């Protein structure tokens, strides 16, 4: 009797499986025809699948708003793979408003002469974007960055002209009368740490 039961089970289960496949045959495919579809801003009239554009929080390539950077080195310290390298020079003291919705102000005394992010080493983990006090380093939604040369993966955010300009400004600042300098030194550390504490909350 087992013999006939086996035959019956085989036939019925195979027919069931084939029914599922046939059902899928007649449903609309889920394929998204990249690159015809602009996945950053898809416009697909009549499309009935589940595609959404690349989401708002998508961790694409990093970018830096160099004017808002206060050179606090938090991002470079927290990066697990050391993909951020930068150098800065001392300059006149200003404040920078955070790019985040809270709009906190941070003091800025250092100006960038070099800011390189190695996007080949980057893990796209987002830790740098979280510790930045001003929110100047943040993700874009861009993901199309294939390059033929490995060194093209290092993105430079400060052009040589800009670096030259900052160096000149730093020289001018250094040439100013001395009594101003010692008063400045303790201030940057306290507010920066207090800002970082507030950031953690």
């Amino acid at each position, binding site marked *: 009797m087992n013999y006939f039961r*086996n035959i019956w089970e085989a036939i019925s289960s*195979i027919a069931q499986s*084939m029914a599922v*496949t*046939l059902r*899928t*045959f007649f449903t609309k495919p*889920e394929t998204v*025809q990249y690159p015809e579809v602009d996945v950053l801003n898809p416009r697909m009239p009549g499309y009935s699948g589940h595609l959404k554009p690349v989401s708002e929080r998508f961790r694409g390539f990093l970018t830096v708003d160099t004017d808002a950077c206060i050179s606090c080195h938090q991002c470079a310290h927290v990066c697990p793979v050391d993909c951020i390298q930068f150098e800065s020079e001392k300059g006149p003291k200003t404040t920078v408003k955070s790019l985040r919705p809270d709009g906190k102000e941070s003091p800025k005394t250092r100006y960038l002469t070099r800011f390189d992010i190695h996007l080949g080493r980057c893990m796209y983990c987002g830790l740098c974007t979280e510790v930045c006090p001003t929110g100047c380093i943040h993700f874009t939604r861009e993901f199309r960055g294939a390059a033929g040369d490995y060194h093209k993966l290092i993105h430079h955010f400060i052009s040589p002209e800009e670096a030259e300009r900052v160096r000149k400004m730093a020289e001018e600042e250094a040439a100013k009368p001395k009594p101003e300098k010692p008063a400045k030194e303790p201030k940057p550390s306290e507010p920066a740490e207090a800002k970082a504490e507030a950031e953690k909350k």
Partner: protein
Amino acid sequence: MMMQEQLNQGIHWVIGQAPVLAQVPEWAWYLAWMLVAGSVVLVAASLVAGITSWVERRIAGRMQARIGPNRVGPRGFFQWIADGLKSLFKEDVTPANADKPLFRLAPYLVFTGMFGAWAVLPYSARLYAADLNVGILYVMAITSLVVIGILMGGWASGNKWGLFGALRSSAQIVSYEVPAGLAIATAVALSGSLSLQEMVRAQAGPLGILGWNIFKSPFAFVAFFVYFIAAVAEGNRTPFDLPEAESELVAGYNTEYSGMRFVFFFFAEWANLFLIGAVSTTLFLGGWQGPLANPDTWWGVMIGAGWFFLKACFFVFVLIWLRWTLPRLRVDQLMAMCWKYLVPIAFVCLIGTMLWMSVFGDRAFFGLVAVGP
């Protein structure tokens, strides 16, 4: 693809145009004619194989909620041409410890074994390359050449995985010849002849449908499924695709093949899909018989060819459907299924059909409809 008298008429017409050709001996005409007919069948079979590969990829895509190839040509139709051209340009790699003559010969054997059967298929009442009076026996014999080709390919690769695939395949194909042969014997018994054209003619009936062998008795109905399963196993298709089990043996007997040689193996497999469909319809589903397929009129003949093609394509779809749905059987389960299930059932079908015929004679549709004299 014409009958003997028409061939003679054609030869006389050609000689009439150019009298100098009257000196050509008779055997040369027949040789030339065979080459022409063979080439036409070969080209047709290759086209069918290529198009079947495109159809398979599109259908497989849709069954998996995705589109198949759609970039090369309208709906990806030229994908197979692109793949074939690409493999022509590939480096011809022969492994260092391969048995070179056998390695080179194996794809041709598989190819020949597959395409040789296309010569006797009854595409229509007037459309066929050859009508052997032992047609179906010839088909069984020539497709067995594939076993030798696969064994050669696996052994000569010098690769243990290839040898594995070859051994599994030879065991599988040889075993499944038995139920296939028994089911074919059932169809032969119902039709009374080994010739494929005769078998189709014997399936004439009302509406062109009720006379089909599959409807002649419940035993013949079951015999059809036995034959179909055995043919799927012969063709190394899932659920019996152990010899080329991609997830176990990399690619089985064709692991070491690249470029054009690899394409030969695969063309043979895709053409075999159509062949399985064609032989199944010829044996059990009435071949070119169908509504309005009256073999006496020329348009009836064309419609008959259409029916044949349609039925074979339906089977191609079923084979693709099976492949992309079912997992594969393990080798001992496969053997058990053949010897413990298919062979006894095929025997029962054969004997049952003979008993049925002795009671009901030549009546169609489960003995309900009388067929003309």
